[in-house]
């Protein structure tokens, strides 16, 4: 490397400098630390060849002190000065002069000028080295920024449920030009990997097992980044034994405990993992870890929501064993309808909770009314009519369910305006409520009640068709009809009774397919 140190300096100006200060057109050459000429002033001159000849004949660039040195050869005298920088000699500035036994007066100026030239070269070299070091530093910053931007872009573009971790690892493997990237976080039950293979790894599954197992345990006890480039590394007695790959492993620390590791694996033919790789690895490992923590909290919140809803539903359904599973079934069918109508995500979310919790208000209906196995009196029916409003009163305490409330509150409205609680008609009834009404009607017909057995899918469909335009929104009934033509999966799931389908109808359907 020192021999390349002078490669990017333009010496022409030093040649001019020497000529002007001494007033003599000396033939000048600059040699590197090994004594090989890297530049000379007179393109046609033979100074480089002469110098090489001197070296070949045993000239060893002897220097006493930092000043101008003299070497008398047979045909001429070589005057030279060492270019000294802090790390040692960079090379020599040389001038050829007529052979003489005395010391001409002009050599005083020449000696001073050579010293100045050397100092100038040293300063320029120092400046160039500094610039290069800064460029290196800048290069690492570019690399980091590029990575951070890429993570940011991917996190922002992520779709719910999309495999963010895998895509982040994939792009990281590509950016780092690594064969395998993996993230292991046992606490969040997370172990993701991505490959960017430069050549096949036949035992990739073993490599992944090793990461999850021994490598994680090793990182867990060392709590240090692990970089293993050499095949002879003694740590291979414990980790990646018989797996001849280079590895970089960055632990993520939380309160001094290792909670996750990020690993890069490379074929041995790839360059060694460096310090800057390690820094980038730590950056990404921390990002992934906090993302994973966020995901964990999100999942926990979702589970909590669902479990709270399940408890509420349990409380309602405990009052009337005949309605067991009703909320879940209405919810399932309503979501099928909503999906077929391609509702936007927010509306689907509202439908999700509205349909699941639509009957929560039944908690307020006395058991004697709710479970009465006979026709209700007018007063008793008044209790029943209150329940959608009760559902609303119960759910309004939950901000998260603001959008879901209209669906629950108005699911007993009828399309012709004869329903309750508000007697809304047509499109004044919230869309989600109209969807829940169809699903609710279907389930009331097909499930058993205290006072009657459940009826068949076909009977329910007929009844729903009959109510289209009066009780139910015909547009949603049409969507429901389309879904039923596909023999939906819920028929099995909810064990819905079927009527023997007439052979003619079956044939018709077969022909229709």
């Amino acid at each position, binding site marked *: 490397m020192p021999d390349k140190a002078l490669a990017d300096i333009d010496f022409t100006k030093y040649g001019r400098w020497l000529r002007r200060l001494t007033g003599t057109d000396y033939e000048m050459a600059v040699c590197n630390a090994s004594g090989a000429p890297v530049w000379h002033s007179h393109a046609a001159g033979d100074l480089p060849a002469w110098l090489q000849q001197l070296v070949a004949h045993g000239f060893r660039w002897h220097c006493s002190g930092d000043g101008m040195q003299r070497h008398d050869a047979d045909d001429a005298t070589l005057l030279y000065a060492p270019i000294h920088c802090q790390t040692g000699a960079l090379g020599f500035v040389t001038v050829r002069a007529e052979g003489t036994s005395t010391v001409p007066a002009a050599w005083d100026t020449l000696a001073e000028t050579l010293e100045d030239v050397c100092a100038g070269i040293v300063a320029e070299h120092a400046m160039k080295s500094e*610039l290069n070091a800064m460029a290196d530093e800048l*290069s690492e910053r*570019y*690399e980091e*920024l*590029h990575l951070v931007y*890429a993570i940011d872009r991917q996190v922002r573009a992520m779709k719910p449920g999309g495999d963010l971790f895998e895509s982040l690892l994939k792009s990281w493997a590509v*950016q*780092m*030009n690594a064969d395998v990237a993996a993230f292991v976080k046992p606490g969040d039950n997370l172990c993701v990997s991505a490959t960017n293979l430069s050549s096949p790894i036949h035992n990739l599954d073993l490599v992944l097992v090793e990461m999850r197992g021994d490598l994680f345990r090793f990182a867990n006890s060392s709590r240090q980044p692990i970089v293993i480039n050499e095949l002879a590394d003694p740590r291979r007695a414990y980790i990646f034994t018989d797996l001849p790959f280079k590895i970089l492993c960055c632990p993520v620390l939380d309160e001094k405990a290792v909670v996750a590791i990020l690993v890069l694996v490379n074929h041995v033919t790839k360059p060694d993992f460096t310090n800057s790789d390690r820094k980038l690895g730590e950056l990404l490992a921390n990002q992934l870890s906090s993302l994973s923590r966020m995901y964990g909290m999100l999942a926990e919140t979702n589970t909590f929501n669902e479990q709270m809803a399940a408890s509420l539903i349990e409380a309602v359904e405990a009052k009337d064993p005949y309605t067991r599973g009703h909320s879940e079934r209405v919810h399932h069918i309503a979501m099928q309808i909503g999906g077929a109508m391609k509702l936007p995500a927010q509306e689907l979310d509202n439908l999700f909770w509205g349909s699941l919790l639509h009957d929560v208000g039944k908690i307020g209906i006395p058991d004697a009314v709710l479970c009465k196995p006979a026709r209700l009196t007018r007063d008793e029916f008044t209790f029943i009519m209150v329940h959608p409003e009760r559902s609303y009163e119960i759910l309004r305490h939950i901000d998260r369910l603001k959008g879901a409330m209209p669906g629950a509150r108005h699911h007993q409205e009828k399309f012709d305006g004869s329903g309750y609680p508000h007697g809304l008609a047509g499109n004044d009834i919230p869309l989600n409520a109209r969807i829940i009404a169809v699903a609710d009607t279907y389930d009331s017909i097909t499930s058993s009640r205290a006072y009657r057995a459940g009826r068949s899918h076909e009977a329910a469909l007929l009844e729903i068709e009959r109510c289209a335009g009066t009780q139910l929104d015909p547009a949603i009934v049409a969507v429901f009809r389309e879904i039923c033509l596909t023999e939906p999966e819920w028929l099995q799931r909810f064990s819905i009774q079927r009527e023997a389908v007439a052979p003619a109808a079956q044939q018709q359907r077969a022909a229709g397919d």
Partner: protein
Amino acid sequence: MKPRKVLIVDDEPHVIRVLRLTLEREGYRVETANDGNEALEKMAGYAPDVLISDIQMDGMDGRTLCRTARRRYPLRSFLILVMTSMTAMDERDWVRELSDIEFLEKPLSPRQLVARLARYCFAPPGDLEIDHAG
């Protein structure tokens, strides 16, 4: 193998310095230019294997440079890499009309640039043999 020639065009000296240093270490012969005009002047006497250009530059911008370079040298085969910020997605449109051109996202990853150039310039020897045979 003969060193591959790369022409870097950017009006930001720090970008040029970082890229030049990175690529010279990888054994490429690097020429630089500060804008499209200077780049075209260099290309008159020098056929790079890869042209790396910024888009926004005083003087001739990258768009004009790439179009002109392709039109002026239809027989030379060289890869064009255009550097653009990650947010300027609309820049993706104009390059469709040019052949053999790709994007590099700024801030540039020197590492990715090296990997990309290696794939382009030093395909595995086997592939090169096939290329020559074909």
